[in-house]
Structure formats: C-alpha cells, structure tokens
C-alpha cells in the first residue's frame, strides 16, 4: 500500500470539499435565483468539466497557472513559487473539476423549494441571508449533502486533471489513482489491486450512505425541475 498517496488523496479531497462548500453554495444559489438573461452561459461553464476530457481541462488549467498567464504570475509574485506541480495547484484544478458535482445537486435542491415559502419569509421581515439559512438550506439539506459527498468521492478518484496539473510527485501530487497507474506500469498488479479495491469499496460505501439517507437523490445529472 502506498500510504503517502492515500493520505495525500484524502487531504486533497477534504480541502477541495471545504472550498467547494464555501464557493459552490453561493454559486448554486446565484444560478438558481438570478434572472440574468445570460445565466445559461454560466450554467454551461459550470457543467463543462462533466463533458470535457480531463486532459483538456487539465491542459488549460496548467496553461492558466503557468508563468505566461496573469494568474500564474500573480501567484508566483505572492507565494514565491508557481502553482503547477504543487499541492495548491492540484487543489485549484480539482476544485474546477468537481465544481458541477457540488453545484448541480445544490442548485436542483434550491430550485425545488416552494417559492411562496421564500416570499413568505420576506414578507415576515427576513433578509435574504436569513431566508437562506432558516428556510432554503434546511429544506434542501439533502441536495447540499449530496453535492459535498459527490465532489469528495469524485476528487478521490480523479486522474487526468491531477496528472496534467500536478504531475506525479510522490508526497506532493501523487494521488491514489496515479499511484495505481504507476503500479500497473511497473507490473506490480498486487499493489495496484489493493489500492483499486480500496477506492472501489470506499466509493461504494459513500454512495450507499448517500442513497440510504435520501432516496430521491439522483447520482449524476439533476439540474432542472
């Protein structure tokens, strides 16, 4: 077993989930309730990682992080080193890659909240923030949990983006799936099998818990009412 890869993968998934919870929830709220006419463009951008080959996504993330891009230069001048091939770079790539898995279940759940309840809350003097935390969030908690758990599980198993953005540096950017690939390349099928089995069992357990908690939840594509 490659314990450093397992630890790194878990750490990556936890950090990514935390960031997605903080960023994905407001984004999901905005996508649900905005009346912006170009909203569909934003929806498409969020959903892109679902259909793009991870290598394509990873390639552009890498380019965007590189020293040629403003983002890359800004980060370099702040932190003293570049984003690519670091844990932070991996986090950035994974956040983008798992974004639809967080945003879509949440947006779908928010959209299912009866709009008259939101109106009633406003009539009773509640601000948007209070309405969100007292009414919308409790009534769509299933979708929020789904979004978090799915993005966690999804981050655990990603390969293409990680390889493009992080390379394959043990302890820094070598995740479980890359370690499995390494083992297979080295014809070490036993270790590969152990790691793969671990990932398989873990993913199965996560989804089982999710479905037992909430039977109405979809797995892949919820968005419209």
């Amino acid at each position: 077993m490659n314990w450093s890869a397992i630890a790194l993968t878990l750490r990556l998934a936890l950090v990514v989930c935390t960031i997605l919870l903080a960023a994905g929830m407001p984004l999901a709220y905005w996508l649900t309730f905005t009346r912006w006419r170009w909203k569909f463009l934003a929806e498409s951008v969020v959903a892109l990682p679902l259909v793009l080959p991870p290598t394509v996504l990873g390639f552009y993330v890498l380019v965007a992080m590189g020293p040629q891009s403003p983002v890359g230069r800004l980060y370099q001048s702040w932190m003293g080193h570049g984003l690519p091939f670091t844990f932070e770079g991996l986090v950035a790539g994974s956040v983008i890659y798992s974004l639809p898995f967080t945003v879509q279940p949440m947006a779908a759940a928010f959209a299912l909240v009866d709009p008259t309840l939101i109106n009633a809350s406003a009539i009773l003097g509640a601000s948007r923030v209070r309405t969100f935390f007292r009414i919308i969030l409790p009534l769509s908690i299933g979708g929020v949990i789904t979004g978090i758990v799915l993005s966690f599980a999804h981050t655990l198993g990603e390969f293409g983006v990680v390889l493009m953005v992080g390379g394959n540096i043990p302890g820094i950017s070598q995740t479980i799936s890359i370690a499995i690939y390494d083992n297979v390349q080295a014809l070490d099928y036993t270790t590969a099998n152990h790691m793969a089995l671990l990932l398989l069992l873990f993913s199965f357990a996560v989804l089982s818990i999710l479905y037992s908690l909430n039977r109405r939840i979809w797995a892949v594509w919820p968005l419209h009412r």
Partner: protein
Amino acid sequence: MRDGGRPLAGAIGLSVRIGKTLGKDFSLAAEFEAGAGITILFGPSGSGKSTLLNCIAGLIAPESGHIALGARVLFDMAAGVNVPARLRSVGYLFQNLALFPHLTVEQNVKYGLAKMPTTMREERTATILESFRIAQLRGRKPNELSGGERQRVALARSLVTDPMVLLLDEPLTALDALTKSEIIEDLRGWNASHEIPIVYVTHAVSEAFALGERVVVLDGGRILAQGTPQEVLNAPRHEIVASLVGFENVFEATVQSVSESQGTMNCGVGGSEVILEVPLAAVQPGEGVRVAIRAGDIMIANSKPVGLSARNTLKGRVMSLRREGVTVIVTVQAGVSFEVHMTPGACQELMLEAGEEVWLVIKTYSCHLVTRKSDEQGLE
C-alpha cells in the same frame, strides 16, 4: 396586541394605482383605495387579483403607479421608490398558506418576530397562540395539522407581526363551511380591535357578502366596479359581474321600443316573439342589450296570472326539474332558457312536472341591464 414600538397613528388607508404588463395581451391597470376594514377583491381566476396582491406586498414590482399606506409611500415609479417586501409591514396569507414545513407551529408563528427582544417575543407568541386556539398545537409540524388548524396557524403567523395591512389570497377556498365560518369569526374579531386595511381576494360570492364592507370587482386586469357589496352585487352593470355574483340568467335581447315617460323599454328576447319590459337605458331601438335576472327573482304560475304589478308574464314550458339541497332548480323554455329557483314546498304545491306549460312572472326592476365585456370602455 398593539404593544410594539409603532404608534397607532389612527386608521391608515391603502391607496393603490398600478400598471403592469403580464403577457402579450394581458395587462393589469388598477386603481383603488382600501380604508380600515375588509375590502373584497373579487374576480374570476386569471383576472389579476393575485398579481395585484403581490404588487402591494412588494413581491412584484409594477411598471408604473403609486402604492401608499397612509402617508407612507411603498412604491412610486416616478420618485423611484420601491420599499422591499420585508420592510413593508404587510401581512400576507398565501393561498397555499406557505407554512414552513420543517418548523413547528410555534416556530412558524415566531418567525416574523426575529428582531424583537426575547421576553416580548415569547409573550406575543403565547398570546396569539391562545387567541387563535392553537396553543395546544405549538409543538406540531404543519403536516400534522388539519386544514382548519393550518389556516389558523397561517393567520396567526401573519397577524403576530402587527402588520399595517393584511392581504388574504383566497384563504378559505379549500375549507368546509363550518371551519370557514370559525375563521371568518377570528378575522372579524381581529378586525374589530385593529384598524388596518384588509384586502381579501376571493371568487366566492358568499365570502364577499359575509365579510366585505367594500367590494372591488376585477376582471381581465381592469377594475369593473367598486362599492359596498349591496351596490356592486345588486346592480351589476357588467355581464362579468352579473355572472360572477350569481345572476343565473344572462341573455341577449333586442330593444324594440323605448318609453322614456315610463322609464322602460320593451325588448325581444333571443330573437323570439317573447317581449320583456326592462328599465330604461341609453340605447336606441334595434340595438342589442344583455339582461341579467336572478333565478330567485322569477316566479312561476301554472295559469296566467292577472292583477299583478309585475309587468312581464311570459308563457313557457318546463324543461327540467332538479333538486340541489333545499332549492329546486327549474328550467323553463320561454324564448330563451330561464333558470328559476324555488323551495321544494312551492314546487310541490304547484305540482310542477317537466313538459308542463307555465307562466313566468318577472318584475321590470328584476331585469338588470349589464354591459357586455367588449363594450366596457364605451359605456364607462
């Protein structure tokens, strides 16, 4: 209940003047005032009633106009004022009640008192739970309540905040008669001790009569009539008002002669030989009018009556008899088909049967001339 920080400031009237486009060929253009007490907003579904309420509540922004509560401007297009819903001090009882399903009765009722000091909030909640007879339900969730209980919880929740105006959107539609009358009593009780405008949307005539001090009739986004229930319902000048308020007989007639000295006109009914005397109106012989007659205002005789003050005795034939509750509904063909309501006793005494020849007796003043929908603007 009025122990909050807000001064009573006497009766505060609601004045509304708004315009709003709602679709290709539907727009809302309404202007009315509602003083303290219950104003019925009456009209068929799709007439714009709910939109009007939502504009007053601040859930929808009109495209033009002015909404004010006393001196407090809630919306003014020209001045760029649009007070958000949460600051309008409006109570709103939604058609589906909009109780928060994950909160208990007590939490629902308390929801609007978030900014109040705790002791005051508890006290206020306890008082209103008592007065709406829902104190024993405080720990229950909305899905554990009966329809009437849910209604009372929703009403308590919108009144506990001490709103400056109360909006009710067909709140009693789904209830049985007994529960309905209990809730109407609750509302009347509140109304007696709180001088605020209450705008009550309904399409049920019985509710309009039971509650309203003032009726505003809305159809197709326009206000067709307003006044006391008696004024509006007893003299419906519009066909739509007539059919809404239970004029079972509304039909076409052609003016044949006008007698200005008598204040009457003779009309041919439905292109037939039958002549009906109706009150005078500003129309010329040859023009068409619509006549509305309540089914309960028509008498039936089984032989031609003489010596009556009623000017219209029409010969007809009974087509059908049907009993609904304590009313017998008789259909009589006399030029057009008339619906006549009578008590079962009267029906038995006349020994009415289908196919029988009868006489319809109708007073001139029971014939109400109504405006056709399409002529509205012309006669207004």
